[in-house]
């Protein structure tokens, strides 16, 4: 009997194996060619000195007290930023997942926006809003007739955490609420019936069930903050807040010491990989299958008590102000231009007239529309291609075992490596391939895919792991082919996560600049590239106008994809 069962299992397994084994191949190939190979060449410089192969540089870097001090600070600020992002995001995720209210989709769509804004514009938006001479301070000074700006939060460690939270809490909110929405309420109801208080139920039942998605999102935020650069230097106030990325940049660019830069990023890579392995392990341990909840029962509620209503309102207004402040600042600045010789600024469409070529602007402004079209095309393509590729990687990663753990780490690697080092790697590619424009486009799309894969993976994986194996087994037992099972059972269950992932891929591609600049050979212009060049030549308001277009277009796209998620998400 036993052996018969075994044989049966093996047979089913064998049939599936070919299909599931082939799944992750395309994704792995893209990662290999566009990420791992160039990375290998860049990092190999760490071992090459004038005398040939040597470990001296590695030893030096790994044991230097200075490096270790910087590393500790980098880890500290990233951990604190992650904690802050998660804490700010959880109430929002709760509201989005459990209640249905007007404007919910809009909030979700808006929350992805910080992601598409290049970091230099985020810094400017932050300063325009929170700065000593910013909107907030000017308002408060007028209201209470103060001499000094009352809010002096920028240029300190607090500002780093604040800006990182602004950038990242929407990711956590989005990921956790998507996961939460599809969790049934049976366990909680049972707990309540048995007399547990709401707080206790949340702590002992809901939170552990949410843990996989929280950890997944926290991993992304952590790595994002780990590699943060401009935000830390400008808003932190200077070199006392030096991170690994700054040092890598200095070695690679200012000192042109590619060996030192490689050694340092290798060091960094080892540390982040160790952390990743630990994260992955804990996430897998916590993952358990859940019944998929597609009914909208969870969402029919509105805040019941008055206190609940007030709390929901206060949270919504506060976070909306927090997200909207810097973004709105960018929009407001884009409508200001000096009209007179005295230098005073007033409301004006000047930058928009230049953008739409109604007024003779300058070289960069004139090509803005072309850049917008390019950016939209590239981002849409990246989203459409990255989601299936990440999905195929996820099918393999979701299983337990060494190979899948290795693959998961592999899929996350692009996030752990500094953008400076990735940029150096792309130089190698760009220099080897004599790129025509079409080749350039392909390379940019592929590079954006590599950057987006970790995010999409983190969106799909927790949802995938939650999926009860019994669904797939019943389908197979009832005679469906693996292909049919995949398309008719697995994909529909993952739909919401796939759309969220697609939005992230789209947003990342829209805002990406480092890889684009290096690979495109200035033949391809995207919106961030033009923005970057405008800022470089004194035209901040022109860049703000472009930023506004970027924000508007992205909000529309995100809104449409929220609608595409369908009826289960409330109005």
């Amino acid at each position: 009997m036993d052996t018969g069962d075994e044989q049966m299992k093996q047979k089913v397994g064998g049939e599936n194996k070919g299909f599931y084994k082939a799944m992750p191949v395309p994704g792995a190939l893209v990662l290999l060619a566009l990420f791992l190979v160039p990375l290998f060449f860049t990092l190999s410089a760490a071992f090459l000195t004038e005398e040939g192969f040597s470990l001296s540089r590695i030893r030096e870097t790994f044991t230097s007290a200075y490096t270790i001090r910087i590393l500790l600070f980098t880890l500290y600020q990233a951990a604190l930023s992650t904690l802050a992002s998660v804490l700010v995001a959880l109430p929002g995720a709760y509201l989005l997942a459990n209640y249905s209210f007007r404007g919910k989709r809009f909030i979700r769509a808006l929350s992805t926006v910080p992601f598409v804004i290049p970091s230099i514009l985020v810094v400017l938006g932050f300063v325009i809003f929170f700065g000593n001479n910013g909107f907030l301070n000017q308002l408060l000074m007028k209201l209470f007739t103060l001499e000094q700006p009352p809010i002096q939060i920028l240029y300190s460690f607090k500002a780093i955490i604040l800006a990182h939270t602004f950038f990242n809490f929407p990711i956590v909110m989005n990921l956790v609420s998507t996961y939460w929405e599809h969790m049934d309420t049976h366990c909680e109801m049972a707990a309540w019936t048995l007399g547990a208080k709401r707080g206790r139920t949340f702590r002992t039942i809901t939170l552990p069930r949410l843990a996989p998605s929280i950890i997944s999102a926290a991993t992304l935020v952590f790595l994002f903050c780990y590699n943060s650069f401009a935000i830390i230097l400008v808003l932190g106030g200077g070199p006392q807040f030096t991170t690994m990325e700054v040092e890598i940049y200095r070695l690679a660019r200012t000192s042109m010491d590619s060996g030192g830069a490689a050694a340092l990023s290798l060091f960094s890579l080892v540390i982040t990989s160790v952390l990743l392995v630990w994260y992955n392990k804990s996430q897998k341990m916590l993952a358990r299958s859940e019944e998929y909840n597609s009914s909208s029962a969870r969402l029919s509620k509105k805040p019941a008590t008055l206190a609940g209503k007030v709390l929901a309102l206060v949270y919504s207004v506060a976070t909306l102000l927090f997200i909207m402040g810097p973004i709105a600042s960018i929009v407001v600045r884009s409508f200001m231009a000096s009209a007179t010789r005295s230098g005073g600024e007033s409301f004006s469409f000047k930058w928009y007239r230049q953008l739409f070529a109604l007024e003779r602007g300058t070289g960069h402004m004139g090509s803005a529309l072309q850049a917008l079209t390019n950016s939209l095309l590239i981002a849409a393509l990246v989203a459409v291609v990255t989601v299936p590729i990440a999905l195929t990687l996820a099918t393999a990663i979701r299983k337990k075992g060494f190979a899948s753990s290795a693959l998961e780490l592999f899929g996350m690697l692009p996030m752990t490596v500094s953008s400076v080092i990735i940029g150096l790697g792309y130089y190698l590619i760009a220099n080897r391939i004599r790129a025509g424009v079409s080749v350039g486009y392909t390379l940019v799309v592929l590079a954006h895919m590599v950057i987006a894969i970790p995010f999409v993976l983190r969106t799909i994986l927790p949802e995938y792991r939650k999926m009860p194996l019994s669904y797939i087994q019943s389908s197979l037992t009832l005679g469906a082919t693996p292909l049919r099972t995949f398309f008719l059972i697995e994909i529909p269950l993952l739909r919401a996560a796939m759309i969220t992932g697609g939005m992230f891929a789209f947003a990342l591609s829209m805002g990406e600049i480092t890889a684009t600049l290096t690979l495109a050979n200035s033949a391809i212009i995207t919106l961030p590239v033009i923005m970057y060049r405008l800022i470089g030549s004194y035209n901040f308001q022109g860049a703000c106008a472009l930023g506004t277009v970027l924000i508007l277009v992205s909000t529309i796209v995100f809104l449409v994809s929220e609608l595409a998620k369908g009826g289960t998400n409330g109005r």
Partner: protein
Amino acid sequence: MIKHQRLIAVLAILLVSSLVFSQGKKETEISSQQEITVYAYDAFCGDWGPGPTIVTEFEAKTGIRVNLVSAGDAIEMLIKVRGEKNNPLADVVVGISDDMAAKAYAADLFEPYDSPTLADIPALLQFDPQNRLLPFDYGNFAFVYDSEKLSPAMIPTSLDDLTDPKYKNKVLLIDPRTSSVGLGLLLWTIEVYGEEGYLSWWKAMKSNALTITEGWSSAYGLFTEGEAPLVLSYTTSPVYHVTYEGSTRYRSALFTEGHSTTIESVGLLASSKKKDAAKLFIDFLLTDAQLDVATANSMYPVNSGTVLPPAFDWAPKPEKSLSLDALAIEKNLDRWLTEWTQVMSR
């Protein structure tokens, strides 16, 4: 026999095709003699940059087409041409500054060119005795102030002055590890205080600097947003505001110790196959294009025959220009940066 026939056939095909291809190559060489590729930093190529105007003028004058490529900043350009050494794409590189020159020499990328136009350029500005890199414009680093925020009595007159506690949180500095302008200030302090004294200036500035940004763009953006009334930039920065905004609100402060100089240069790549056309472009840049370059770049022209527009009255030339030897920079820069980081990160 058959074997031999095959061999002969293969050889014949190879011979014919090589003839055809070599002929094709020759033809393209002749026709593309008329197009040169110029790498320049981003700001040169676009927006208010001088690139588009002078390329049009040059093409009209000589009939040689110019493919102007916006190739990042100076370091990116160096990395790029170094990477393309065996596979050259460009003929001319515009925008390597004098303090980076040693890196360009070390990479052995540029060919000496004793341009006849050098006769009109002050010897002081010709920093490369071998003429691999030829100066085309120059500027002086300076602190720019907001005249609506600083009373005349508060305008600083020296680097020493800036360390006064009255400037607490009023100055925007730039990190020398990540920015060429920031590096300019580091070298400026070494020129003024020497290796023994520069670190104490920076130590004293710690509480006066509102923040030390990663690049010029953020610092200047913060400055025009009114976050602080003093920013590290160039003596010529006010020219932009006078020319394009009609505003004299932002002015540069002249310092008694003198100002550090940065000279931007153009170089002929040794790998170029169109050197004659490339040389014509360099000559054009050092003569006819000087006014366009100066006004668009907000820098001083090198050619002494250039007449500047009135807006440049707002860009006072410092009485004393300071600079360090390129080789000394190359040798010590890493150590200076490390010392600087150690002092400033404490």
